[in-house]
């Protein structure tokens, strides 16, 4: 019952437009099977049509649904109800199409006892009680665990924390839990549900039963399925209902559509009501989420205008990346831009892979090369260059905040050693999961074992754990320091649990005052701020590992390096993707959370999977991205993709980061950087210490590396523009490089010099219009030099130069 309109495309270079693959309308039914386990168990059914243009329609109401054996079950109001033990089939017919799904009925006489965890906790979630009351200190004197992460505590607080107040077992209807919710009593949070509604009745039944806790082990909720998994709908005014099943550790599952909480990221495009019915609005994308227990699952919903005319262009697909990107684009009815020309590709690839401009001779020769694989060959060539290592050392140095700070007794020597070590690892192609594991588990002298400097740069376990979470996992735990994260699943327990890994780090001085020894103290605990209890080490969103007699950081490192780690590879893959495409699939890249979903989940899933298969080799991942047509698209928009910025329909115009821009100016002017204490000729990209900077780099937003999220800043400022126009950097470089002088001395004609200046800066030849516009300036022999220097200055100030496009 999966998406059928997107038949698997031919492997390798495929030129088949997705539209060609569409078949006649298909009929899908969700779920694929019905299994009812007690008297009250029901299953809502969704019947979906996929039209020949890929658009979905909910035809549950129009279709005929019939049980083959009506003695076994009933179909009423969109749901299957149990009648008698046994198996039968539900037959679904619509417009000549038909299918059937198996129906199994077990224990139809069994009346289930009400369960606090399975029945009441979802009410607290659906009515959003545990959102406001989920604050660390509760709300108006009553606290619940955020989104119900602590059912035991919630049961206690509802029934026993303040006896006589919240529940009334003598008169259950008069319980404050109900009177607050149904509007009977004044409530800051207003009315949450109607008297007599399903939520009300569930709560009331539980109160009438004496507000029992669950006895014994309750079966753990392992996840939820939201069906269908993705939708393309027409708008406005179309409805589509979805169904949610909860899966339990014992292998059972049940329909929880009526008790799941629904949210939409974009109500304008697709609203969802609490009965699970989506109603479409304007053209756009929405991420429609169902939340049940600790699980939130979203499905992407694309809303298109009715009867939209759209033709999918003929585009190549090099690899799975292209297929996944194009699938999304087709669903959006957005056509990708064409492939960029050779020169654009050459410059873009040089800047992205090496942080340098292509040499003039390559600019001349590359377009002329007739080898059909020349782009791939260039990718392989540049990946092997040391500048590639420099660029990624720089990226990691930002992430790890490599900077000296004499006030905090962080001297240049360990910083330099740390940077050098990092460069060696990337040079040697150490898998990035291993690299991260080495950092997290590092102990010993920071001189002898430079990765241990990770713990020298920051002492505070709060900062260390926050930084590690953001750098290695892309998640921001900060909010959960003082309260449970309001927009994500992170609780204070997650926060303190992660911090607990970093509570046993010892730091002692060595002979050299610049040196430190990092060691494992085997003592020190993270305490929960509410109640001061010890929180054991816990992987974010995961298990509580055994750390007895172990270096806790080693335990964390092993988890981090595990190819199955749900966060690390995915985060780094996204980070690498964002480097090449200018925007992350999750964006910002260091803010991975349920409510900030990836713009293309299958794509991110694929990259993460591939990255693990590649043994976390950054070169291989970079190669896979660079060979894709998606990377090689032009920045020129077409009418359908001009408003799109998140789906990679066109290439993104990106300002060069500060270090690369300065190096490019040096390269274009043939004037190497002379940087304070650094050797002449060292490129800005190679500078190890963020403290060593200059006005240009600071103005252009070089990362100060003071916080983990302070990435290089590429947003324009007035001082940047002024500095390029009137500042001393360009002027000084032009003078120091004296390119015009040299070429004039070689008696080169002015226009040849212009060509050389174009090749060195914007990596192309001047076009006819530019030539004829410049020609008159060279008529006066006295002014030729001044005119040429002006041309050089103008080129270095042009957007075409400053931006990677």
């Amino acid at each position, binding site marked *: 019952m999966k998406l059928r309109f997107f038949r698997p495309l031919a492997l390798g270079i495929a030129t088949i437009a997705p539209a060609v693959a569409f078949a006649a309308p298909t009929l899908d039914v969700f779920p694929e099977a019905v299994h009812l386990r007690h008297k009250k168990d029901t299953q809502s059914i969704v019947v979906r049509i996929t039209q020949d243009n890929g658009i979905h329609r909910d035809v549950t109401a129009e279709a005929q649904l019939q049980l083959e054996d009506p003695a076994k079950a009933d179909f009423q109001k969109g749901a299957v109800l149990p009648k008698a033990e046994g198996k039968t089939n539900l037959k679904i017919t619509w417009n000549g199409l038909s299918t059937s799904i198996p129906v199994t009925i077990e224990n139809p006489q069994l009346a289930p006892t009400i369960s606090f965890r399975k029945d009441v906790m979802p009410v607290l979630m659906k009515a959003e009680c545990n959102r406001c009351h989920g604050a660390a200190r509760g709300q108006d004197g009553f606290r619940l665990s955020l989104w119900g992460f602590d059912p035991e505590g919630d049961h206690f607080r509802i*029934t026993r924390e303040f*006896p*006589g107040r919240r529940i*009334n*077992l*003598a008169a259950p209807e008069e319980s404050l839990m109900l009177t607050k919710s149904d509007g009977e009593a004044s*409530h800051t949070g207003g009315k949450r549900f109607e008297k007599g509604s399903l939520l009300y009745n569930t709560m009331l039944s539980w109160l009438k039963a004496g507000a029992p806790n669950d006895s014994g082990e309750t079966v753990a909720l392992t996840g939820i399925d939201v069906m269908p998994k993705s939708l393309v709908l027409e708008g406005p005014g179309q409805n589509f209902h979805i169904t949610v099943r909860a899966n339990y550790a014992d292998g059972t599952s049940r329909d929880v559509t009526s008790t799941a909480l629904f949210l939409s990221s974009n109500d304008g495009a697709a609203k969802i009501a609490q009965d699970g019915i989506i109603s479409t609005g304007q053209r756009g994308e929405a991420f429609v989420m169902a939340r049940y227990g600790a699980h939130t699952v979203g499905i992407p919903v694309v809303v298109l205008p009715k009867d939209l005319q759209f033709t999918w262009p003929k585009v190549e697909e090099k690899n799975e990346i292209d297929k996944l990107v194009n699938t999304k684009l087709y669903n959006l009815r957005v056509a990708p831009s064409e492939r960029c020309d050779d020169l654009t590709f050459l410059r873009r690839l040089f800047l992205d892979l090496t942080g340098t401009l292509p040499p003039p001779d390559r600019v001349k020769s590359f377009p002329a090369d007739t080898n059909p694989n020349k782009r791939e060959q260039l990718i392989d060539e540049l990946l092997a260059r040391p500048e590639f290592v420099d660029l990624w050392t720089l990226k990691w140095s930002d992430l790890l905040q490599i900077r000296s700070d004499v006030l905090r007794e962080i001297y240049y020597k360990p910083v330099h050693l740390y940077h050098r070590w990092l460069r060696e690892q990337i040079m040697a192609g150490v898998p990035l999961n291993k690299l991260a594991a080495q950092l997290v588990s590092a102990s010993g002298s920071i001189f002898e074992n430079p990765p241990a400097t990770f713990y020298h740069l920051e002492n505070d376990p709060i900062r260390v754990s926050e930084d590690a979470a953001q750098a290695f996992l892309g998640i921001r735990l900060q909010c959960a320091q003082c309260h449970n994260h309001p927009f994500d699943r992170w609780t204070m327990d997650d926060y303190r649990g992660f911090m607990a890994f970093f509570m046993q780090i010892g730091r002692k001085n060595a002979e050299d005052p610049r040196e430190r020894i990092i060691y494992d103290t085997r003592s020190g605990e993270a305490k929960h701020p509410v109640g001061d209890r010890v929180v054991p080490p816990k992987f974010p969103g995961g298990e509580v590992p055994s750390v007895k007699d172990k270096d806790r950081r080693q335990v964390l490192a092993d988890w981090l390096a595990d190819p199955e780690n749900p966060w690390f590879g995915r985060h780094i893959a996204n980070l690498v993707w964002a480097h090449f495409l200018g925007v992350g699939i999750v964006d910002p890249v260091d803010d991975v959370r349920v409510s900030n979903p990836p713009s293309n989940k299958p794509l991110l899933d694929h990259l993460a999977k591939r990255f693990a298969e590649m043994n976390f080799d950054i070169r291989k991942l970079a190669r896979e991205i660079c060979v894709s047509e998606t990377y090689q698209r032009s920045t020129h928009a077409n009418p359908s993709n001009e408003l799109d910025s998140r789906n990679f329909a066109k290439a993104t115009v990106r300002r060069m980061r500060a270090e690369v821009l300065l190096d490019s100016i040096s390269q274009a002017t043939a004037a190497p950087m002379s940087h304070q204490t650094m050797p002449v000729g060292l490129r800005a990209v190679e500078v190890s210490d963020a403290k060593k900077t200059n006005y240009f780099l600071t103005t252009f937003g070089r990362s100060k590396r003071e916080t983990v999220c302070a990435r290089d800043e590429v947003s324009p400022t007035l001082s940047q523009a002024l500095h390029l126009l009137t500042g001393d950097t360009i002027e000084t470089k032009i003078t120091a490089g004296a390119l015009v002088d040299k070429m004039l001395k070689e008696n080169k004609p002015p226009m040849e010099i212009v060509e050389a200046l174009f090749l060195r800066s914007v990596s192309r030849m001047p076009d006819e219009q530019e030539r004829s516009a410049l020609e008159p300036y060279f008529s006066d022999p006295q002014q030729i030099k001044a005119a040429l220097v002006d041309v050089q200055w103008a080129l270095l100030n042009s957007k075409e130069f400053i931006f990677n496009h």
Partner: protein
Amino acid sequence: MKRGILPFLALTLPATAALPEKVTYDDHILPLFQNACLNCHNPDKKKAGLDLSTYAATLAGSDNGKIMHSGDAAGSLLYKCVKGTEEPTMPPKGDRLNSDELALIEKWIAGRAPESLSSKGAPVANAVANAVVSLERPAGAPPMPGTYTQSVPIAKVPRTNSIVALAASPWAPLTAVGGHKQVILFHSDTLETLGVLPFPEGLPTTLHFSRNGQILLVGGGIAAKSGKVALWKVETGERIATIGNEVDQVLAADLSPNQSTVVLGGPNRVLKFYNTKDGALVRSIKKHTDWVTAVSFSPDGAYVASADRAGGITVWEAASGAESVTLPGHKTAVNGLAFLPGILASAGQDGTVVLWDVAEGKERKKWNAHAGGCESVDFTSDGRIVTCGRDKVAKVWDQSGKLLLTTQPLGEIALRAVIAGDSIIAGDWNGKVQAFALADGGKPLGDLLTTPVEGTPPR
């Protein structure tokens, strides 16, 4: 007034036509009297000495005295007679008043029987006598309920709520237990039910006998809606005052030993002093930073202590309301307070009992009493301390913190415990109230029937 009264009506009446916002004599009651009463009770006939044709005459009453207690419909002869709950039922002939008319009269009296839209209404005059404050046992037989049968229906409930209101008379073998919209009186020795006092205002959350044992105070109400304190004469079962007009349940209240003042508090954090005679609010104090959970007068009436859910305890001069001392010690909720001359005991959610020297404002003794939380504390007149808590037992201590006795476990969290005569009476989360021996290892002696069914004869 509107807020406090409406729920009361809603509880006692079937669906009726919407009542006017303010019921007045001129606009509503006189026309009703003209239809149904003035035939006899006019200035000329004046049957039984009663004239209802003017406001002043109505207030003046009949040969039997006043026919109205301002603010207390249920306690007013006028209402009882027209409702038919007391002889002579009125009107004696012809149609009885319908429910809408009854509601109108009830609301009028509850709203202090105003004459017109612009008048405030008749002053409340509660029959609360001044008491001589004494630390000694009062002379004569201790006050016990006489033979009174409550004619109001006892709330029929499938089970009792958690026991949060429980008190024993300081002198008589009498225990009061809060139930659903009622207070049930038991003989502390025989465990027999002696009577039921209706509290339609909601759930009783606190019970206190007056120092002399003559009056029973009950505080409570409907959570997040309304709160009241009621005073009853123990011997007659007569409700002599209804005090307070809170917008949330009263969680804690006590009556001053001289019976002049009721102090109450609840979730709105304000401590309020009410005059018992006219129900007037004397003072409100905003000092507590969390819900007020306990209030207790000192036996001599000089001080009143209050405590909150954040662990704060303050002792006030009862007469002036001036702050006498704050007692820091509990970091989490204080669940109960009890006073002996000069000594205040507090029960904390932190599991401890603290004895405070009130004059010095210092902690005198502190000990862990109940793991998980100490829910209540009380003194016996001979100075022993009885506590109970989340460890599901009640315990008796001397003032040095020496454990004298632990009862057999209750089935659930033990929420309230008192010593009554030779037994400990303790109530738990399940709503069960049991008596335990004060000797013999605290063995159970029997249950107090907290879910009386309708028709059970009291006594």
